[in-house]
């Protein structure tokens, strides 16, 4: 919707609100592109950084925001409000008792102030900024500061909007994106036609991953044209070395070198490798649970390194030395990859093996009986495919194992956040123990349709037996068919089991709770 654009931070607040309320992807793209075209530098650069998750304001933590509001609002009233609104920034923006007198600070002013904010001065500075703003500007500031905009537009969509705003190809923008820093002066100069694309040849850049479509019609596959390999259940990662600079990136382009220092240290070849991070376990690949112990850590203890040693199982090669080989066919890239991996420490790097299959039946057999539990299916890649960012039709397919299924009983429901903040949308379910107790085995918050969510929400409200803050315990009466990719031992639940990637596939009102599955049955599915 076209409305007169407000200046400064409230203009960004308008953009966030517009994105929140805009229906479709195209409407969101247009809103962002318009804002990027019409907002001056460096405001738009900081806004773009926020939209793409690239804005780091380390001095402002959710804990600080909570502390500030709890000095001003009774803690119980704050908690009840937060529980209802479901979003910290929005709750605080509405509760903050000031009407924004005087000139409101601009976006760049706020960001530049908050970026260099020391811990000791943070409370006073942040409170002072919030006092100068009205509720929408406070919302924008707190969203920026906490780094989670939740406006239904992710980083990729924002980069696409940038490309559309300035008539650039999104591939070219993606390619250059990861070498640049906010507020992206070079990027906007390129967009406005004042300069060529930024020169990034000497930097250890993230290159967007090539992704696969699910294989929908196996019968239509031209098997001879495709190479097959296992789809490993680890963390997709990219190892990059340019000169002496080494970086390890996750699938979304975040740097994870420090989380997996042994990989970065062993990256002795100048190359860009696409592979899967896995933990070495007894006699092969460790479980995903073991790998999870290593995730999200900024520093890693020696014990962690020893207990959960990680290696990169390589799928593909993007750069061989300084040479960009992405245009070369897969078969050639795999041959060169074999040579590169052979020169690396086998403790840290190995090759994802090629699979021999000439017919669909052979592929189906491989898929049905993989030799390792860390395999979640097959990858099928056209032998002549170049390495292109994103999901391109017809080039790569993933053919996952059939999901496992179990009938579980709903035990607890919790209110969701964001768009679902008034709905009970996080469901904990259990299976029967031998002594007739129901024990939780997993938690799922998707898989159902909007209509089913409404139904579930109503059911939860009508069958509540206990309330614990935002959580309701319900009558043990509703059976949910849960689909999941794997199940294995875990200390997270009292049942001693945890599911990987559980989702609710059906609501089984037809099935009495007593006939739901037992823990024994579930354990057997784990193999």
């Amino acid at each position: 919707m076209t409305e007169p654009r407000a200046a400064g931070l409230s203009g960004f607040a308008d953009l966030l609100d517009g994105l929140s309320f805009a229906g479709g992807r195209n409407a969101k793209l247009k809103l962002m592109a318009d804002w990027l075209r019409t907002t001056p530098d460096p405001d738009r650069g900081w806004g773009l950084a926020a939209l793409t998750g690239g804005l780091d304001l380390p001095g402002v933590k959710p804990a600080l925001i909570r502390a500030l509001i709890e000095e001003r609002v009774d803690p119980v009233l704050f908690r009840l409000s937060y529980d209802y609104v479901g979003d910290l920034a929005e709750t605080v923006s509405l509760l903050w008792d000031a009407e924004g007198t005087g000139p409101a600070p601009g976006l760049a002013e706020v960001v530049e102030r908050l970026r260099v904010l020391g811990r000791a001065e943070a409370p006073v500075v942040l409170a002072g900024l919030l006092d100068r703003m009205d509720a929408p500007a406070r919302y924008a500031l707190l969203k920026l500061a906490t780094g989670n905009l939740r406006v239904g537009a992710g980083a990729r969509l924002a980069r696409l909007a940038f490309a559309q705003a300035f008539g650039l190809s999104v591939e070219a923008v993606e390619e250059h994106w990861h070498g640049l820093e906010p507020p992206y002066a070079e990027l906007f100069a390129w967009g406005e036609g004042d300069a060529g694309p930024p020169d990034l040849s000497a930097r250890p850049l993230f290159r967007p991953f090539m992704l696969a479509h699910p294989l929908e019609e196996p019968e239509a596959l031209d098997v001879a044209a495709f190479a097959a390999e296992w789809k490993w259940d680890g963390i997709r990662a990219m190892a990059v070395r340019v000169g002496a600079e080494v970086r390890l990136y996750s699938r979304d382009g975040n740097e994870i070198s420090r989380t997996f220092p042994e990989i970065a240290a062993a990256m002795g070849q100048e190359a860009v490798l696409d592979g899967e991070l896995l933990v070495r376990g007894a006699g092969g690949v460790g479980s995903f649970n073991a790998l999870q112990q290593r995730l999200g850590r900024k520093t890693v203890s020696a014990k962690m390194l020893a207990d959960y040693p990680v290696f990169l199982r390589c799928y593909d090669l993007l750069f061989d030395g300084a040479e960009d080989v992405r245009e070369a066919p897969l078969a050639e890239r795999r041959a060169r990859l074999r040579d590169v991996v052979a020169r690396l420490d086998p403790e840290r790097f190995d090759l994802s093996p090629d699979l021999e299959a000439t017919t669909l039946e052979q592929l189906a057999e491989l898929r049905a009986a993989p030799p390792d539990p860390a395999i979640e299916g097959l990858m099928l890649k056209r032998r002549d495919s170049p390495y292109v960012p994103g999901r391109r039709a017809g080039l790569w397919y993933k053919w996952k194992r059939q999901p496992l299924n179990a009938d579980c009983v709903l035990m607890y429901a919790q209110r969701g956040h964001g768009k679902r903040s008034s709905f009970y949308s996080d469901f904990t379910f259990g299976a029967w123990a031998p002594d007739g107790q129901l024990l939780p085995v997993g938690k799922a918050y998707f898989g159902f349709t909007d209509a089913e969510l409404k139904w579930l929400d109503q059911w939860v409200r009508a069958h509540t037996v206990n309330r614990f803050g935002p959580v309701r315990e319900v009558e043990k009466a509703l059976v949910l068919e849960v689909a999941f990719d794997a199940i294995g031992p875990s200390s997270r639940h009292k049942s001693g089991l945890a599911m990987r990637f559980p989702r609710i596939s059906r609501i089984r009102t037809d099935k009495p709770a007593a006939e739901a599955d037992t823990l024994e049955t579930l354990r057997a599915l784990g193999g």
Partner: protein
Amino acid sequence: MAPDVRHWLQPRPEGLYLPTIDVWIDPARPVQRAIVTHGHSDHARGGHGAVWATPPTLAIMAERYGAQAGALPLAHGEAIELGGVRISLHPAGHVLGSAQVRLEKEGAVVVVSGDYKRAPDPTCLPFEPVPCDIFITEATFALPVFRHPPAQAEVARALAALKANPDRCLLIGAYALGKAQRVVALLRAAGHVAPIYLHGAMQRLMALYQAHGIDLGDLRPAAGVPAGELKGHVVMAPPSALADRWSRRLPDPITAMASGWMRVRARARQRGVELPLVISDHADWDELTATVRELNPKELWVTHGRDDALVHWCALHQIRARALHLVGREDEDD
């Protein structure tokens, strides 16, 4: 200490009950004798044996449920006495005809607010503060995040959006009783004189308001009007019609909704609303707490809504308060 009124006034899940005279206030099912505070369907049900309410509320009930055989009009300020209980109705500022119920027995005064607001509304009489020992309040928006901005400013935003998008129509979703008429009256007060087009479910109550002397200007049915003629115009519909097939034939509507819930973005998103308008016929947090302070009752009872927050606020301010947990009150559209 508040006087003990339990022998003659009892909160029950289905409504407030006066056992010595067998009268219910806003009962959730048909009863022998009822007092109805206002015409919203979660307060006013048809089919009571006898029903006291203000003349406009009785007119609204007749419009919705057909003529009520037991209708007993009781004007604002007028009093009756039943078995030692003195009963009178006082303006609540919620919708046309809305009333608070003042009850007095043996020197103890209880006021039942029904739903109310303190913000000005051109379509109904303003809330009248009535001194009392026990004040029984609603708490629909009893969270400090709910602060309703001036309704004129919200309507001005809507008109600005309409002006900026001459090829679209402005589709405003609003509760058919009260909110819709208030929004139209505010649009008129803001100088919008063009015809306003109505969803079929809006027409009869609009006419009823006009028959009560409230000027709503040129209102026309939207049915049968070609989409092209609706460009640049306001169309009013009940909230349920916003995402319905009904709205598909409109010319690229700017979907707005007038409701206190629009203060929270997630609510607006769930509704698929493009232009949220924070306009409510209920008291917001500041109005609720200011009303409690102003009346300074010895005890506060809370009928429905976010009672936990208001009861907690009372505890912080050393006011005795309890939640009644009345059932069947639905304000999700307001």
